[in-house]
């Protein structure tokens, strides 16, 4: 079984649109939306939820005001400024480290389970999908990404699926690292703007750092052909294959509004280009066997 993760360094490059299109070109794959902070894939694939499990991120501290004498030892020892002066806990800042519980002389602090999101096992018209929802202000998105991937892996085993397709989170931080861990290939979607080039460089540093093979797709390439050339030559220097280029077009938005993938929406030049990209990605996935 292979794992493909689609990432972009930043949102808005068309990553989810491309993930959905790939999902509609594969058979026997598991689809995983690892962009748990702001998932969008379900808007196109319209999954029907089969079962939901609660996700617990970190435990957080809870202070029993009956027992608390107000000695402030906890406040002094919390490295995250998570305890207010009135000895209540700021649940956004609390990292759940347990230091306050350890230092409190009155045993007034307990660590409690903190539900911070849900993971869904669902069915779509293109096969099983795992997705999640994170509650606002919850930091454990890296852990939730890992939970989504674990669900996807067990579904893949059950279904003897050949491939897991992950729509990755934006950025270069914790959730992205969780999403690319264990992936066989990262498809990086970029666009030829100055910031796109910059984000591409950063995300390639990340995939290099974690030794994940990468392949690039340039979206909206005709917005700035000079920048596109620059991306192509820097990919060549770095030994990264450019799987293909997609033009700036109204097709992705129209398909999105119609809740269809680009492939489903209509057979046109755009969908043909995408099919070619998928062929290259697929052979790259197999070659790294």
């Amino acid at each position, binding site marked *: 079984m292979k794992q493909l993760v689609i990432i972009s360094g930043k949102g808005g490059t068309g990553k989810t649109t491309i993930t959905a299109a790939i999902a509609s070109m594969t058979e026997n794959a598991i689809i995983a939306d690892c962009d748990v902070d702001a998932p969008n894939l379900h808007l196109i694939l319209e999954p029907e939820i089969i079962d939901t499990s609660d996700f617990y991120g970190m435990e957080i501290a809870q202070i029993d005001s009956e027992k608390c004498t107000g000695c402030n030892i906890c406040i002094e020892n919390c490295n995250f400024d998570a305890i207010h002066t009135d000895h209540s806990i700021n649940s956004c800042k609390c990292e759940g480290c*347990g230091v306050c519980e350890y230092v409190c002389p009155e045993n007034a602090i307990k660590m409690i389970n903190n539900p911070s999101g849900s993971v869904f096992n669902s069915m779509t018209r293109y096969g099983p999908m795992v997705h999640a929802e994170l509650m606002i202000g919850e930091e454990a998105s890296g852990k939730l990404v890992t939970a989504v991937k674990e669900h996807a892996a067990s579904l893949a085993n059950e279904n003897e699926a050949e491939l897991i397709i992950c729509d990755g989170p934006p950025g270069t931080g914790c959730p992205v690292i969780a999403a690319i861990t264990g992936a066989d290939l990262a498809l990086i979607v970029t666009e*030829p703007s100055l910031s796109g080039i*910059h984000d591409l460089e950063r995300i390639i540093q990340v995939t290099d750092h974690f030794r994940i093979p990468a392949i690039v797709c340039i979206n909206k390439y005709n917005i*700035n052909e000079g920048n596109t050339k620059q991306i192509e030559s820097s990919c060549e220097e770095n030994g990264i294959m450019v799987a293909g280029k997609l033009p700036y077009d109204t097709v992705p938005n129209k398909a999105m509004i119609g809740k269809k993938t680009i492939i489903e929406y209509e057979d046109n030049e755009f969908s043909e280009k995408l099919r070619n990209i998928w062929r290259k990605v697929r052979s790259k996935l197999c070659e790294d066997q």
Partner: protein
Amino acid sequence: MKIAIASGKGGTGKTTVAVNLALSLQDAQLIDCDVEEPNCNLFLNRELDQLTEVSSMIPEIVEENCTYCKKCSDFCRFNAIATIPNKILTFPTLCHSCGGCIMVCPEGAIQEHEIVTGIIRKTSGDDKKSPELYEGLLDIGQTMASPVISELKKNIDPGKTSIIDAPPGTACPVLTTLEDVDYCILVTEPTPFGLHDLKLAVEVVRTLEIPHGIIINRSGSGDNSVEEFCMNENVEILMKIPHDTKIAQLYSEGIPFVQEMGHWKEKFIQLYSSIQDRYSREIET
């Protein structure tokens, strides 16, 4: 006055709005809190000087004092220390720097070791035409964005107008960024994805009780669902930036569009004054 620019997700034009707004105002500060990918300076193109380093503490084991009692690894909730018979290992990338292991070690075998997780930079020199930019940059492979953002925000001058570019998403880095701002502009696109992310962003600012309004970017490229949502939910639409190839082109070259399309400067100034009139708080002395 502190105005944050946020969006449920990246790529909606948050940085574009932040930069163009800051450029339209006199003497504004621009604070780039998207520390995983600070992009504002790609449009300002100024020299940056390093101001400070943001560091955190990770444990360093003095092995000759260690008895492999496991107290530290049992305490650590982040699996950043492992003890196996006659061996102890640390995993610095997992460490949250809580300091707990040092407290629990009965042998004093753990020392603090500072590592740099990010840096804060600011524009050097004086350029009256361009806002003063501060940015935070998280090191690759580091996961703790909030401490870098908190350190960065210490540079906000309460006597000035600060335009704060927030990170994408709805997690802690965003909340750390939005804490104590006076107003929040949410940037969105008129598509189903844009609407979905906007709903999340509105939930965040409502939870934090921050006054807010919307800028629709690439207006005309999608459908009406964002406008309908704003009407039904009583959210103010502050401005629409049209779907325009000239703007997209300038963006791709890293040129803020107010520089080439002067009339937009006026629009941003008006936008700012209308927000200031209604929401600016008295500056505390």
